[in-house]
């Protein structure tokens, strides 16, 4: 009994950031490589030490080639709460498995990791390195170094986590309907997917207009999405970007995308828009008369998420994933507010705090049912629809919180 338990067990050393995002990332990647998530450890919570059973070393290696949440992986030979327990646990580990590492000319070292200085080490492991995770990706793809950024460019680590939640793999087609400066596409392209995107903002897609990096006035000719991919040697994965309204997509009927990975506008730093019937042309567009942006309708956030889910249900391949950020006013958040669709199954929901009363949640969904036209209207019948309305007032609530705080601070400084 003890023997079979100790076979194929690995210890993962996890990075201590984006805590909530780690478990869905590891689960998604294991599923991508043909493994299944099983474990003896019940609570992961804040611990950096995870024990997993992985059916083969190949799967473990593939996992480490992709993960940004795990730092290293080790074959687990024994563990225990005391040196005596550890010793007897090690004695039970099959000797045949140790033999490849016990040549007289091979060396080993013992490293001790602790978590929370108040604890003495809970586990010691004989360390045989298998692989280290992909955390150096975060540094090489850091937004600071990227040529073309916008106001809301995503932190590099999170963009890789999103691609992993999306189970992006080589030769996939990944689409971003709110592509902005293309930051999310870079992570997918890095994992070998071909990428495309749309955005309603003509200037952003073309790389024109005010630059978002401090001290820069205009975006140069090397600032656009294609140039960003070129900077990282990923230009061959660039398919196309289009100027388009995500609420009025221009794709012919069919399923094309293996993953849709996006960060829709929340209406705070970038405005939420869609094309409307008013003829008023916004300032700054005079330079590009052909951009034809008769835009001024504010896009209700709940409509936007509904459109996004419908779009995903229609255009994703079966088994394809939608990964997106949902802004939330924390005091009123309930799980029922997470948008729902009959064709999409909720896989994970991870929170990242933005401020004292707002956060955003990374939602991952998987298409499990073929889209039929009548699914478009099912939301009207569902009582899930009503809580969506809360998203519409996200902008008001965000700003009301800020203005109240400013008023309070001014009052305090006057006293």
């Amino acid at each position: 009994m003890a023997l079979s338990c100790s076979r194929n067990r690995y210890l993962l050393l996890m990075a201590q950031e984006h805590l909530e995002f780690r478990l869905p990332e590891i689960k998604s990647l294991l599923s991508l490589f043909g493994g299944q998530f099983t474990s003896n450890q019940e609570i992961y919570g804040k611990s950096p030490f995870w024990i997993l059973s992985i059916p083969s070393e190949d799967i473990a290696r593939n996992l480490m080639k992709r993960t940004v949440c795990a730092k290293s992986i080790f074959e687990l030979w024994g563990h225990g709460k005391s040196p005596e327990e550890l010793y007897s646990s090690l004695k039970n580990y099959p000797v045949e498995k140790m033999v490849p590492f016990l040549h007289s000319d091979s060396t080993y070292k013992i490293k001790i990791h602790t978590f929370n200085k108040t604890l003495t080490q809970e586990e010691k492991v004989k360390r045989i390195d298998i692989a280290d995770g992909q955390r150096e990706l975060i540094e090489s793809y850091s937004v600071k170094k990227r040529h073309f950024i916008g106001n809301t460019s995503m932190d590099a680590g999170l963009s890789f986590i999103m691609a992993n939640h999306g189970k992006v793999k080589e030769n996939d087609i990944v689409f971003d309907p709110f592509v902005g400066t293309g930051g999310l596409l870079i992570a997918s392209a890095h994992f070998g997917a071909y990428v495309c995107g749309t955005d309603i903002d003509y200037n952003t897609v073309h790389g024109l207009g005010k630059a978002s990096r401090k001290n820069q006035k205009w975006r140069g000719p090397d600032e656009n999405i294609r140039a960003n991919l070129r900077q990282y040697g990923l230009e061959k994965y660039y398919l196309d970007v289009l100027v388009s309204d995500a609420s009025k997509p221009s794709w012919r009927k069919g399923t094309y995308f293996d993953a849709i990975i996006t960060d829709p506008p929340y209406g705070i730093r970038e405005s939420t828009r869609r094309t409307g019937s008013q003829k008023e042309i916004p300032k700054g567009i005079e330079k590009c008369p052909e951009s034809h942006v008769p835009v001024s309708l504010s896009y209700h956030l709940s409509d936007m998420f509904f459109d996004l889910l419908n779009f995903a249900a229609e255009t994703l391949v079966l088994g394809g994933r939608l990964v997106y950020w949902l802004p939330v006013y924390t005091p009123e958040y309930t799980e029922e507010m997470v948008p729902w669709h009959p064709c999409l199954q909720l896989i994970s929901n991870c929170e990242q705090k933005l401020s004292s009363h707002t956060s955003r949640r990374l939602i991952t969904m998987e298409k499990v049912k073929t889209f039929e036209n009548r699914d478009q209207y099912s939301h009207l019948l569902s009582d899930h629809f009503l809580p969506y309305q809360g998203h519409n007032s996200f902008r008001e609530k965000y700003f009301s919180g800020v203005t109240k705080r400013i008023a309070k601070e001014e009052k305090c400084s006057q006293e």
Partner: protein
Amino acid sequence: MKLLTHNLLSSHVRGVGPRGFPLRLQATEVRINPVEFNPEFVARMIPKVEWAALLEAADTLHLVEVPKEPIEGYEHDEKFLKKMHHVLLEVDVLEGTLQCPESGRLFPISRGIPNMLLSDEETET
């Protein structure tokens, strides 16, 4: 704009529905962009292609050596895949227009980027 993308685009002008495909292509500037050949990716795209629309667009651009249809066993036919790779991914329309076949509405392409925006009156509800 690559021909793979053109093959997936449709007009969403109100009332047009499936007759909005394919968009009629007019190009004033085209560039051939070498892209690294990836046979697995090209093979994955073949089932998604609407062949008549592709041939029409290729014809407009005066492309030669365009396969007329997918051949049996195409997944392993490197010659076939290389030709498809060139047509789908290496031909880039930089300037031109896409026209809705039903309504005649024009969508401009500039710097390789199509602009599909319409006003509310023009689009489906």
